[in-house]
């Protein structure tokens, strides 16, 4: 938790816009978040490919927040966008049981498992991903996409 807080404070000194979103933990709203994220990314100046990457990554993170990260039935979770001139940071914070393991492995094609792709996809599509997890107090995922980086 500390690490991310410090990061945010530091950010506030540079030119950064903060957009906050709080969403019900319902599957039907994830597409709205993806759309909002696309619009923000497009405003910053990301190209279509990067916008797709951001869309998929935020979709996966919200899916996890809903599936694993919400305790109560009518729970909500938070999405924070930090829009810089040269990057977009997205923070997704839930109040669930916390991540059990931060050991994200490349999926083995032969295994044919239905799950376990989400975090790997996020790590692959974004330039930087940080997890903060507090047992039974939720998970924070902070992911960054840089503008104009391959």
């Amino acid at each position, binding site marked *: 938790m500390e690490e991310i807080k410090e990061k945010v404070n530091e950010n506030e000194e540079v030119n950064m816009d903060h957009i906050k979103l709080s969403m019900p933990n319902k599957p039907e709203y994830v597409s709205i978040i993806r759309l909002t994220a696309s619009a923000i990314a497009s405003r910053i100046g990301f190209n279509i490919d990067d916008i797709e990457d951001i*869309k998929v990554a935020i979709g996966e993170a919200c899916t996890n927040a809903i599936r694993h990260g919400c305790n109560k039935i009518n729970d909500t979770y938070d999405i924070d966008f930090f829009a810089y001139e040269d990057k977009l940071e997205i923070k997704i914070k839930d109040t669930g049981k916390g991540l059990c393991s931060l050991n994200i492995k490349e999926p083995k094609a032969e295994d044919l498992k239905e799950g376990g*792709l989400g975090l790997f996809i996020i790590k692959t599509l974004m330039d930087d991903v940080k997890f903060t997890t507090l047992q039974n107090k939720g998970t924070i995922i902070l992911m960054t996409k840089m503008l104009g980086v391959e």
Partner: protein
Amino acid sequence: MALKINKLFDEEKKVWILKPYGEIDIYTAPKFKEILLNVIETRDSNIIIDGKDLEYIDSTGLGVLISGLKRLKETDKNITIINLRPNISKLFEITGLNKVFIVKEV
């Protein structure tokens, strides 16, 4: 923001053709799963998925495809995926699923 799925059985080639329109995500994946497994139950044969109008798929949707494939593998059948858009093609590549399904350019 929604999902529609067109299904038809090609009697000549003895193959199911499924064509999803829209987005397969945490919200629409259950419906996709129901249709996919139902199709397999009705007639156990190879399946072609035409991705031309599939705009978005996430890990939940990929999971459904994998569970369908598992079912088909029991009787040595397969899933072929055609016409994928570049953004979705990329997902199959990074997850290695392009080696698990038969993914064709056209």
